[in-house]
């Protein structure tokens, strides 16, 4: 008995040594900064002068600053465009790939290739491709008799153009969905077929439930990422030369937060913005998990 608990204690000590890097990192780079950030959000810290407490003034300003509301709305619109579109396109392509047998290896490579493009590079390329007058996208649209918009300059089209760039890099989801589709047991489809289920019925009653875990995972991670979108928007519409011309229609939340923190040095206010973002992401994720739990099927659930 005694020796066993000694062994357990030794094992416990070794375990903490192994996870020590994470514990240290968590304290120094996550927990500590979270406390500091919360404290900063109640101050007027500007990097130069020592922080002075301002009470809830920063949070008051969150409500009063129209650009906070505007950037939040822009971010929601972008997420509402990209997340559903990206999911549908990726799932459709994955289902196509599933049907082409050996050749799917080639297409997987092709569809994933754009993901390797750094966001700055993708943004720069699409500024040209989406050019309203002479861009390739509008030229292709013109073949079909569609007059394309001024994607990168018409304020109404800035968010759709951001979504287009994101759609181009949707390859990761395609691979994830394809793997999930291939994990669906063949017998389920055969049984449904014998029961006389058509393709639509089989998709809704067999495929969708069986891949719901993967769908759920990508939708949640994409939503969280979309709420924090920065690189593309900043590359395409912001920078030293554009301070005066940039339209507020492309101002996503992280860009405004970044500007407040590192261009205007309003670090207290930026911290308050960060906490608002955290709360919003938390609420969205909780809602998604709640809704998801009603639809997502996890293998092995019944055996538990």
């Amino acid at each position, binding site marked *: 008995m005694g020796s066993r608990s000694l062994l357990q204690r030794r094992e*416990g000590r070794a375990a903490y*040594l*192994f*996870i020590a*890097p*994470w514990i240290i*990192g*968590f304290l*120094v*780079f996550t927990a500590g900064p*979270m406390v500091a*950030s919360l404290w900063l959000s109640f101050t007027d810290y500007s990097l130069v002068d020592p922080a002075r407490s301002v009470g809830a003034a920063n949070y008051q300003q969150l409500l009063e600053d129209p650009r906070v509301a505007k950037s939040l709305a822009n971010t929601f619109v972008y997420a509402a465009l990209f997340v559903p579109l990206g999911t549908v396109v990726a799932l459709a*392509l994955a289902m196509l790939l*599933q*049907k*082409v*047998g050996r050749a799917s*290896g080639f*297409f*997987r490579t*092709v*569809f*994933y*290739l754009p*993901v*390797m493009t*750094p966001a*700055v*590079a993708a943004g*720069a390329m699409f*500024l*040209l491709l989406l050019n309203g007058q*002479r*861009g390739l996208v509008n030229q292709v649209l013109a073949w079909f008799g569609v007059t394309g918009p001024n994607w990168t300059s018409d304020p109404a089209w800035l968010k759709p153009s951001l979504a287009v760039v994101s759609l*181009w890099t949707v390859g990761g989801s395609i691979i*994830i969905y*394809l*793997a*999930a589709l291939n*994990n*669906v047991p063949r017998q389920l*489809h*055969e049984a449904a*077929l014998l029961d006389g289920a058509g393709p639509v019925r089989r998709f809704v009653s067999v495929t969708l439930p069986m891949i719901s*875990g993967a*769908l*759920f995972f990508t939708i*949640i991670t994409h939503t969280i990422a979309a709420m*924090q979108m920065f*690189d593309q928007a900043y*590359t395409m519409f912001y920078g*030293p030369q554009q301070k005066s011309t940039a339209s507020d229609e492309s101002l996503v939340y992280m860009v405004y937060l*970044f500007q407040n*923190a590192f261009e205007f040095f309003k670090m207290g206010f930026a911290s308050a*913005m960060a906490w608002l*973002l*955290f709360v919003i992401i938390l609420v969205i*994720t909780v809602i998604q998990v709640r809704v998801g739990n009603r639809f997502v099927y*996890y293998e*092995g659930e019944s055996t538990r």
Partner: protein
Amino acid sequence: MTTEVRPVPPAVEPPSAPLTEPVAPQGLSPAGRRRSLGVGKVIRWLLLLAFTVAFVYPLVWLVGASLKPKSQVFDNRLVPETIQWSNFQEVWNAGPVLRWLVNSVTVSVMAAVAVTLSSALVAFGFAYFRFRLRGPLFGLVLATMMLPGAVTMIPVYLIWHQVGLIDTQVPLWANNLFGSAFYIFLMRQFFLGIPRELFEAARIDGCSYLGLFRRIALPLCRPALIIVFIFELQASWSDLLKPLIYLQTEEYFTMPRGLKQIVDGFALSGEYHWEIAMAATLVATLPMIVVFAFGQRYFMEGLATTAKQG
């Protein structure tokens, strides 16, 4: 989110085998089905072809655009009418591009090595040992994935400010030394797939815990290590936000940060030299295409593993 977590076998099967297996149910009546299958097949291939063009064309077009003279960069031709190699000379003159490339390689390799080793160590701790706080602590690891980087961004900046490492590349990779939640999660799955008897046999032979990690866990999970390394390499190479926050001196820029400067200075202002911006874009993208060419199967495998865990 991760109710059913299937251990991933440490031995790696070629990803093409499970991924390409056709699961489509065959038709019931061969005669009636064959014709409709034929039409469906044509539509399917046409759609795939259209999307292939949509995904690849911009990259191929980029190569062409980077070689066009200023007057032709908007002409949408794939092959330039006149080839102007001097665009790359202009990029070279526009900034210390070689330094930027070297900086990016240094930063992304440091970031990837650091995160791979530290995450593996922590993941092994969570996979092999049974200790009292294992459940709650691992829950905490997973919970940190939901925290937006914005919340810690400013205080972490202030830490690096305090220790005088602003305008150095250290802040771009150093916090990777402490593991990263998603990679810890991913690697733990691989470690859990190793039969426990292997470890127990080694323990009886007098192997230390560190020995279990180094001589059994790591070699058996080499694919997992490569997956984490290569994903972080790519993520770190692409990042713009951190270089924007931490780097002020042009000499220290990473390639994406330098590219942003070139796009700002040449294409979005001044004389609108888009061809120079496109040449620089190609320079920033090519290294990742090379990484993809070599590490392709690990990207696919990593994503497929993620799908199973979802």
